[in-house]
């Protein structure tokens, strides 16, 4: 036996499952990729460009803050959480939004909502959603300039033209983003949810509105496939136990339930469950955004309540609120309620239950 070897000490347990933070976050990132690709297919390369800008901004911002806080930079960046935040934010904004929109949003999300509150694990609010809402409220025009699906666009843009629009605001031919949004009839196209809302205020019924160009009969063109892809990725994450099933299932069930009730009372102004479940950012929100572990409830019972209320809020704001899509607002509202939910849903410890 070598006399020079020293014995090492550690505290039990000495065994670990090897499921680390970076591997968990990396799996979530990889699960996002199919959805990104589908979104790019339907809405153009702008999506990819926004993702890349967000990624770079997120990493730079996080490194800067870590340097200021005297924390180790590379090990902390290795946990991939900043990258994930940037990515989720990039997926939520219009693909041809100016570059400074995503940069401001990501900076706010990383610097203020995440790091200022204490870094990973200490933030109260979901950083991506808080960034989104900052952008939505501060720059409503840019944030609502969604292009329709590729098939409906008047002018199809190449990769470089999209790059140019993002960085300069105009294509090489001189068209602005607003002009690009117009269809052949000169009407500005918007997202399916936005279109539905405007149509209802104009007096059309839901059924009539759903016959529009933006829809394929029961849901938004392109958005349907994006949502289905995100749903499949999300189910994969549940299967590999990266996320718990409680939050997504609660959100979707609650949303479905509310949107079944709505049409029962007045079918003309309330869209049905299928529409709500595959429109906007529902699936992305349910599986990727609301399941952010840091800002969500921690007990399983609490998660069910958290998800249920998010679904409810999504429906209420979509149906009666001023904004077309409501996932961000619903998530932020419930983030505020998380400490209360956690307090009241503590599980009963072994030995403290009813005496048999």
């Amino acid at each position: 036996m070598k006399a020079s070897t020293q014995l090492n000490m550690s505290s039990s347990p000495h065994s670990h499952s090897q499921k680390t933070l970076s591997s968990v976050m990396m799996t979530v990132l990889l699960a996002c990729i199919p959805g990104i690709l589908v979104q790019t297919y339907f809405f153009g390369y702008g999506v990819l460009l926004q993702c890349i800008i967000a990624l770079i901004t997120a990493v730079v911002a996080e490194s800067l803050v870590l340097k200021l806080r005297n924390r180790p930079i590379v090990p902390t960046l290795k946990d991939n959480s900043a990258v994930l935040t940037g990515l989720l934010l990039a997926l939520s904004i219009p693909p041809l939004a100016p570059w400074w929109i995503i940069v401001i949003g990501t900076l706010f999300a990383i610097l203020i909502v995440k790091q200022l509150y204490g870094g990973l694990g200490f933030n109260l609010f979901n950083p991506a959603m808080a960034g989104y809402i900052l952008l939505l409220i501060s720059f409503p025009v840019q944030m609502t300039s969604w292009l329709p699906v590729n098939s409906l666009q008047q002018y199809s843009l190449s990769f470089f033209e999209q790059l140019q629009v993002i960085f300069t605001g105009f294509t090489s031919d001189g068209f602005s983003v607003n002009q690009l949004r117009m269809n052949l009839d000169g009407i500005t196209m918007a997202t399916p949810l936005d279109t539905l809302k405007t149509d209802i205020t104009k007096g059309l019924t839901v059924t009539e509105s759903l016959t529009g160009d933006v829809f394929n009969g029961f849901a938004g063109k392109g958005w349907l496939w994006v949502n289905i892809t995100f749903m499949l990725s999300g189910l994969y994450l549940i299967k590999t136990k990266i996320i718990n099933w409680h939050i997504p299932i609660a959100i979707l069930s609650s949303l479905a339930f509310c949107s079944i009730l709505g049409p029962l009372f007045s079918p003309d102004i309330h869209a049905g469950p299928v529409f709500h479940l595959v429109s906007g950012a529902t699936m992305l929100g349910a599986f990727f955004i609301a399941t952010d572990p840091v800002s969500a409830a921690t007990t399983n019972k609490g998660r069910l309540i958290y998800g249920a209320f998010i679904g409810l809020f999504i429906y209420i704001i979509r149906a009666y609120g001023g904004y077309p899509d409501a996932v961000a607002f619903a998530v932020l509202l419930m983030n505020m309620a998380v400490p209360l939910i956690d307090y009241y849903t503590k599980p009963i410890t072994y030995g403290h239950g009813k005496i048999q």
Partner: protein
Amino acid sequence: MESLLEQIERGMLWQAPGGVHPPGHKALTESIAISQLPIPEKLIVPIKQHIGVHGKVLIESGQFVLKGQALTAPNQPWSVPVHAPTSGTIVAIQAMPSAHPSALEEISIILSPDGKDTWCDLFPISDYASLDYEEIIQKIQMAGICGMGGAGFPAYVKSQTDKKIEFLIVNGVECEPYITADDRLMQEHADEIIHGISVLNHLLKPEKILIAIENDKPLAIKSMQRASESFENILVKTIPTKYPSGGEKQLIQILTNKEVPTRKIPADIGILVQNVGTLFAIGEAIHKGKPLIERVITVTGKTLNKPKNVWALIGSEVKHLLDNCDFEPQAQQRVIMGGPMMGFTLPSVRIPVVKTTNCILAPNQIELPFNDNEQACIRCSACADACPASLLPQQLQWFAKAKEYDKLEDHNLFDCIECGACNYVCPSEIPLVQYYRVAKAQIKEQQEEQIKAQRAKERFEIRNQRLEREKEERLNRHKKIAKPKTADEQTKIAQAMAKVTTNQSDKSAVSAAIARAKAKKLQNQNSETLPDNTEVAIKRAQRKEKARLYREEKQKETLDSDNNQAPSSETDDKKSAVAAAVARAKAKKLAKQSESDTNKDSREVESTQAEDPRKAAVAAAVARAKAKKLAKQSESEKNEGSSQVELGTSDDKKDSKDNN
């Protein structure tokens, strides 16, 4: 409506919440029969290897002992003896690093074997049913048996429970990875285990005996089924493999769906759980009269070339076991006593194995990587999903870090069984169990300090009352004896007192304060007709001090002159040493006092401490001025004074005699 017993007999099993599935690694040792080890060169037997108190040591250094001879005898409840694992000579009885995570020293008996391995006289019992209940319990106690599953609860205490036991559960689960000791024991010695079970059956008379084995040990299950065939009362239950199903509370929940209420023991709900190793030992003790001197230990890990299960003598050093399994240590090597989930690392391989050691694990870095990479908690609650006690580990961790002990108790920290499942799944690699252990120790200490503080307060109050009472009694005593003095006598007393004050050679702060108090008393003396006795007591003490000082100086002189002469008697020697020590202490004190003299003055003038040094200096100056004034006053009185008058009781006279 089926009763619980019927449900169990039907084969029903329940589930404990949480749990994890770490890789088993049992293939390393599960197919090798238990082997005997050669007798080691040295045995270190700690005198306390169980939960309770140690017994009285019977042997002494240099004595020859036989194998199985008792080395300690129980002299209190919860005391279990230890025995010599082999014949040999006692080398020493001293404090040695213990088989505890802290490796703090505990008293152990060091034995040097003579190699002959001679047994002492054994008294096997062929028919235990003929013995009294008390006799069987005593036999179990004297055999030194305690819980061998890891806890070390004295077996005789468990067996003599006065509660009605419905189910006796035999724990052959062995859920921790790597360990196969119980597995092999059940395969090779099933009959002896059944012997032990039948002894307990006779003592406790349970309704049913359940032998629980995990389904990853098919051979052990078969073996126990064969051995228990003839016993109607025994039922072998196979439970699904999951860590920590082997924990007492979790096993009870899986087999009977009952929960042990918090802070209570399983006997309170009519259940008793014993490890198969303990039952084997009980069987051996009754059937063959053998005390507990050896046990099966799994020595495993990929740094060993020959991992296997061994019969190890209690007290063998870990080094002996590792050497016999061809140990090749690597860089950053860890040697773990116990399994990978609940075992503790050893700082040295010279630590002895004890009755509760079931495994020695020497892993390499690949099979058990060293994790030192703690990050922030992301509240993913994988830990809460894994916790078998349905706790909220992430909350406990927040509170433990913030040292919020009352919140920890609210969240039931003490129900944590420290199984490590939460730590196992944490993606942020937070050492959760370590935080809980530290917090538990802190809370326990806090509780003890609370009790101590309460006691201290009571003692303080009682003491104050006693002092008050004594003061009153003294006053009353003098009230009865003294008669009112005439004005003449009063002035005489006053003058005498003043004289005593001025006769002080040292200007210590104490005397200054006393002088001041005296001056005040003199002012009030006209209204009082009685002298205050405490004054005289203080004066007396001062006179004694003076006399002592004088005596010390005298002695110092004689000491200096008599340096070469040997002192005549011991008492003189002692007296001079004492005097020298007193002088030294006095000198030190005076030196200190002269520095802080002025500060002391100020402290006595005002009741609160003056922290500001400037304030202290000012106060000191004031005090000095006052003292000077008093000195002048007493000086003037001295001129009018007469000779000293001896006042006081006869005690004074005696003391003054002693001083001279």
